[in-house]
């Protein structure tokens, strides 16, 4: 009987240790992935001669995107809202964003979000268009 009690105790101890180890390991994996996720990249898009360069930029959620205006006139980088979408729909399903006016020689930065609209244009010069690509 003593042998049985001891065996049962050993088993319970081992199982408990294994469970704790599993929990700790899982927590470590989650923390590691979060720290990798938190290392946001910095990107620069230069506006020159009425063109966004690069016109297509690959980014990750959380990255910082900076538009620099190398032209003589103001520009913006503004999310394209598809005709027919109401503002409320656009707000609910996507992130409508804009840098606002970027004066000549200045820069503006936004942080990439998961649901942000990827196509954008210049509010003042509507032929200027570019896009983002989330990896």
């Amino acid at each position, binding site marked *: 009987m003593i042998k049985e009690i001891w065996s049962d105790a050993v088993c319970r101890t081992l199982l408990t240790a294994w469970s704790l180890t599993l929990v700790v390991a899982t927590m470590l994996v989650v923390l590691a992935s979060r720290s990798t996720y938190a290392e946001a990249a910095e990107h620069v898009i230069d506006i020159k*001669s*009425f063109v966004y360069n690069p016109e297509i930029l690959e980014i990750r959620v959380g990255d910082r995107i900076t538009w620099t205006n190398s*032209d*003589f*006139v*103001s520009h913006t980088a503004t999310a394209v809202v598809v005709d027919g979408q109401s503002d409320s729909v656009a707000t609910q399903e996507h992130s409508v964003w804009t840098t606002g006016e970027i004066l*000549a020689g200045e820069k503006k930065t936004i942080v990439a979000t998961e649901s942000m609209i990827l196509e954008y244009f210049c509010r*003042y*010069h*509507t*032929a200027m268009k570019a896009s983002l690509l989330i990896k």
Partner: protein
Amino acid sequence: MKLDLKTLTFMGAALLAACTSSAQSPEELNDLEIAHVAYIADNIDIQYAHLALALSENSTVREFAETMVRDHNGVNAQALALLEKLGAQPQNNFLSESLQANAKGIVDNLTSLRGADFDRAYAQNELAYHQAVNDLVENAFIPNIENAEVKALFEAGLEIFKAHEAAAELMVAAVK
């Protein structure tokens, strides 16, 4: 006889064409006279834009006009900064005066219009004006500018004004 916009624009273009055959031609202007023409040309378009903002309710026209005010003021600021750096003053000349005289007639005509008539006239004038000025800058001014910084400014300005010309084409189509 009331001059219509087409007649006025043709007169302006004819005046410019006639000027090229005289001793006072755009190609003969010096850098400071060219700078003065550019400054006047910018201000004329800003004046047209303010008129549009006062008289038009069309969103396409208003957005275009706001861009004209913003951009032409921006170019003027760059030009004046460059001239200050060079220690120079722009010089008045025959072409600046003819542009101003022509603009007065166009402003008089535009202010007599309202609604869709105004929108169409403004759009057509913007397209014609930018086409004429861009041709002048590209073919008469830039090849003859002596100072490298002034030339670079005009080359950058031409990019801006060509974008305006393209936008004016879209505006003409939108207000037909």
